[in-house]
């Protein structure tokens, strides 16, 4: 399993996405972009339905990404919400030729990393631990979700963030490097180390099911 996690099914290095796992840029150019441009233009002109469409498209992933990094529901909601509010307030200045998602995800993930680091320093581990247990219970016996969530919880915020950006939001390492303001090599090494540790954890947790 550890082998599988570290590489794609066809054996390519992880910074070269397969056809199924194209970069965010390619996917959005394929279809979403036209709708999204319309929504942004509409929202810039004051259209509430367009804002709602933009919100519905991007909020769920933003909230999920924040939650997978911070492992605290209330904090994730605050983080995703503040990023969304910040995006809305500056919507008029947004260049609609560019995709909205990366802009929002950059805000969300950087804030989530900051929050998780600060939280670790304060050693506020009690509430997230409760949520970890609660969040996975629906999947018990039918998926990896519970051990996967617990496994993510055992990683550092930096490792969680790159895994979430790569494997949930499907950004390429180059895009992640730009979003987190890191060298591409650092992103690749964090991905490798994070997945190594995650693979170990999932194996352990699987045995307990």
């Amino acid at each position: 399993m550890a082998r599988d996690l570290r590489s794609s099914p066809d054996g390519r290095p992880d910074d070269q996405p397969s056809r199924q796992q194209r970069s965010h840029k390619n996917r959005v150019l394929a279809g979403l972009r036209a709708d999204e441009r319309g929504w942004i233009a509409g929202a810039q002109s004051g259209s509430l339905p367009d804002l709602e469409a933009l919100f519905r498209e991007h909020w769920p992933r933003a909230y999920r990404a924040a939650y997978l990094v911070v492992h605290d529901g209330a904090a994730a909601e605050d983080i995703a919400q503040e990023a969304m509010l910040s995006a809305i307030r500056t919507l008029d200045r947004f260049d609609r030729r560019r995709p909205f998602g990366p802009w929002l995800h950059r805000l969300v993930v950087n804030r989530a990393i900051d929050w998780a680091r600060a939280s670790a320093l304060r050693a506020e581990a009690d509430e997230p631990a409760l949520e970890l247990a609660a969040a996975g219970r629906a999947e018990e016996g039918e998926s990896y979700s519970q051990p996967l969530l617990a496994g993510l919880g055992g990683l550092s915020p930096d490792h969680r963030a790159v895994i979430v950006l790569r494997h949930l939001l499907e950004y390429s390492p180059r895009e992640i490097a730009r979003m987190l303001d890191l060298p591409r090599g650092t992103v690749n090494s964090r991905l490798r180390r994070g997945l190594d540790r995650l693979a170990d954890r999932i194996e352990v947790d699987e045995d307990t099911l």
Partner: protein
Amino acid sequence: MNAIELRRELLAIPPPDELGATRRSWQLARAAFDEREPTPWPKRHTRGLAAAAVAIAALAAVLSPPGRAVIADVRETLGTEKIATAPQPRAAPFTLPAEGRVLVTAPTGLWIVKANGSKRRVGDFGDASWSAGGLAVASTRSRLAAFNPTGGIRWTLTRPRVHDARWSSSASRIAYLSGSNLRVVAADKTGDRRMDGAADVAPAWRPGEQPLVAYVSADGVLTVRDSDTDETLWTSGVRATPAQLAWSADGRRLVAAVPLSDGRFALTVYDEAGRRLQSLPLPGTFVDAAFAPDDHRVALIRRQRAEDGETSELLVVDADSVRRQTPVFSGQGRFSDVAWSPGARWLLLGWQSADQWLFLRSTAVEKVKAVSSLAQQFDPGGTGAGPFPRIEGWCCGG
């Protein structure tokens, strides 16, 4: 597990209360969208317009003498974008008789009324208060929101059953109730923590450098505690849970309005060291009180039963000698709340039964300015049905 399976599993992890979080966030997103001032179209397209104008001008100038006319047209086009400005506020139905801004909660949400009478709906919040410097904090049932000086939401914090949030006088901390807990959070949203169990009465920060907050503990003890060190400065037993706590602006007097069992209430005054200076039982039901911003006068509303129904009275009481009372205004029905203007020259009284606000010159009561159809003022285009708008404070600056 390969990368595709990993993604599937990440998508299968349910974030807590996803629907609730989405609903709450959409409400805030919508409020933020409503409150933003859209950039005028020409300004948003300045670059595009300028580039198009330059291209047209160059082409026209090269092709023919009438190009000069085109250049003039282009100048005109570029000129008009400089004229475009943000939309003007709608016509004001009334103005405040003094400077500052009034914070109001109505069934339609939270509003800020400026001195020129313009009203701005800030969002769907159920209770709010000002800091001494004009920062607002507000709450919904599950969310605390801190505002920046322009009225935009600076941050929000999700906590269960949030209410009665108050800024410290230095605007560096917020104390609030979450269910039956008193919590404190820093102005930058860091360090949110539970301080103590608390009764259902709004905490009151003592003005001054030290972060001292007065509250009633869960076991009914009036307590003043340092929010940074958790050191309790003093405590005092109270006969019943006070309806309101308020510090004087200089931090030397704390007033507690305590309901009594025999249709009266007591106005109890403490000094900064917790010594009980005076306690005066007054007939009637306590409604609201506010310390003057410059001395120890307290504006107080009480309601009493009368032969022909209810009457309400607004008094000004001297906290240094509570027997010294000045009746300011009385009327049939219910008064709801009172606030002092910055500078203490005016009192704003909510008269629920008359659907009015009254601005009363605190030093010359014969000067009264009334604003009628008050509920409709905060329900534009509606009927104004629902609870009477509540005055949350009248604060400094424009």
